[in-house]
């Protein structure tokens, strides 16, 4: 019996392994292709080989020589970080209130924030363009940060309130009984337990801001506040007559790196099941 069972699980494992490999290759192939392109020299660019015949870092050194890309990178990092920070801080406060307090209009607030998150962004682009032009926000950092927060905040509130609901209410009461002020109870008990939720939310919000193209292309017009996804679409290469494919590939690889770093950095802090052991036996 045991032998048969063992064989069965081995077969099962193999099947799952193959399936997983297929999915991973399917998902990663375009990425690897871009990486490969970014290392090819100009004349071998279109030779169709997956592994470059002649390796070169020219594409990378070139894009970092253009102010176009470097400015866009700085804009992207700055705008995404600020929007993420603001959304997470306000999202934490709002989610805490939603999970803990009973106040009039609570369900309305949750409903409206969900509504905003579902709102088609495209339909907001032209009104936002007009508004920002008349307020002088067009083609500025705040001009992008503000709409990002509008859409990131509901996302943050929604994810975070799910996390806050998981934290036993009694822990806060226990902290109060142990002599903590509400502030101390939040900082020393609730915040450490909410940290995984905050980090998860930060990752989601950061990715949303980092990858946005629609707002970025509609609400900017110069290098002053253009973010990388938009800058990429304006890439022409070093001279007008050059094929920019290599540069675009290199830039695409470069802008993936901050996201990977960001996720890796926070993922280590996301320890699943942190609240286990708080209550009951």
């Amino acid at each position, binding site marked *: 019996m045991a032998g048969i069972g063992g064989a069965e699980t081995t077969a099962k494992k193999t099947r799952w392994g193959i399936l997983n490999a297929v999915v991973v290759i399917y998902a990663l192939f375009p990425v690897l292709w871009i990486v490969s392109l970014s290392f090819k020299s100009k004349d071998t660019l279109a030779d169709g080989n997956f592994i470059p015949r002649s390796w070169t870092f020219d594409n990378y050194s070139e894009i970092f020589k253009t102010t176009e890309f470097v400015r866009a990178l700085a804009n992207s990092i700055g705008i995404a970080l600020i929007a993420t920070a603001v959304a997470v801080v306000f999202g934490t406060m709002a989610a805490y209130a939603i999970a803990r307090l*009973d106040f009039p209009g609570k369900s309305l607030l949750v409903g409206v924030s969900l509504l905003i998150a579902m709102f088609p962004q495209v339909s907001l682009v032209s009104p936002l363009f007009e508004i920002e032009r008349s307020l002088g926000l067009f083609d500025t950092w705040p001009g992008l940060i503000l709409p990002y927060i509008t859409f990131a905040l509901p996302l943050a509130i929604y994810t975070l309130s799910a996390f806050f609901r998981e934290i*036993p209410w*009694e*822990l806060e*009461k*226990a*902290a*109060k*009984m*142990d*002599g*903590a*002020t509400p502030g*101390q109870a939040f900082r*020393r*008990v609730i915040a*450490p*337990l909410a940290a995984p939720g905050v980090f998860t939310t930060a990752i989601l919000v950061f990715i949303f801001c980092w990858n946005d193209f629609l707002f970025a292309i509609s609400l900017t017009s110069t290098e002053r506040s253009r973010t990388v996804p938009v800058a990429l679409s304006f890439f022409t290469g070093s001279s007008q007559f050059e094929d920019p494919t290599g540069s675009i590939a290199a830039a695409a690889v470069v802008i993936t790196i901050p996201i990977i770093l960001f996720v890796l950095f926070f993922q280590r802090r996301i320890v699943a*099941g*942190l*609240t*286990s*052991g*708080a*209550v*009951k*036996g």
Partner: protein
Amino acid sequence: MAEIVLDKVTKKYPDGALAVQEVDIEIADGEFIILVGPSGCGKSTTLNMIAGLEDITTGELRIGGERVNERAPKDRDIAMVFQSYALYPHMTVRENMAFPLRLAKVDNATVEKKVNDAADILDLGQHLDRKPSNLSGGQRQRVAMGRAIVRSPKAFLMDEPLSNLDAKLRVQMRTSVSRLQKQLGTTMVYVTHDQTEAMTLGDRVVVMRGGAVQQIGAPQYLYDHPANLFVAGFIGSPSMNFVPAGLENGLLRSPLGDIQLTDRIRRLVEAADAPSEVIVGIRPEHFEDSSLVEEHQRGGGHTFTSNVDVLESMGSDKFAYFTLSGEQATSAELAELAADSGTAEASGGGGVSLVTRIDAASTAKEGEQAEIWFNADKVQLFDPQSGRNLTYTED
């Protein structure tokens, strides 16, 4: 340490639920007092008001003679153990127990010493550096107690601290809670819905029902002198037998036969202005196999014969169960007790059930007739309408 006084304390929740009504309790310094009652009777609400976790709607709470209604929990110097233990999962056992001291800005050496002392008392020494998630239920429970005792508060509040443990551990922990309280001599308010815990632990027991205090007294006193039907039925296991009866000139007409009241009870009943329909309450241990009752005693009681439904031998004595023909006693209080113990459907219909505890030497057999005697001076009579004990005496 300090005495705690609840003076007409009432709690009305924002949704309009009246959870606690005009509760008066005076808890002496160093006393171990138990709040007991069925689920939903307002025990936790009362405890949370003492703790400061719930606002008091009306009435006054005094600790050590001072009104504390408006004080935050942290300014009341009271420790609490929660039913769920509420341990901080991101802290080790040591950090959990040290938390109240750290908040009080106690210096490191003292924290170390107090935590170690508490760990010794609670036998947690070898677990100090573990996280709560790696501990067993009993160990978690002890950590929760440790966190409460480290800072030597004025009083301890415990909300069903043992109800999440398995039966054996619960009995064990019950003894240690009792020992701990004696050792520390700190005022303790302990909430439970388990009458056995209430009987075995407290100096005094407060029986609550529907947000109101029914009776306050020493466990034995409540057992012997219940003020009403609810207390009589709630305290004691197996619980008191209740049989409906008509009362005429000192004679009880009941499914147990016609019982002649003793002079003592007759006087009490007359003084209490009893109605003509009453409920007779008899504790299981006041019955005996009549063949084992000595001749001179027999006259002071009443004998009946019935078929033994079930006979359980406990070694030290036997429980004999009977079903007598007749209607079951009905009252609001009995219905509530049955609902709480989940026997509402089980005992429905078909006669009056009776539990008797008789001597192990009895030769009564299951399915056969047995002659049972009971002491007529031990019966208690209750008013079915108000639930009042018509035979209640102070001593």
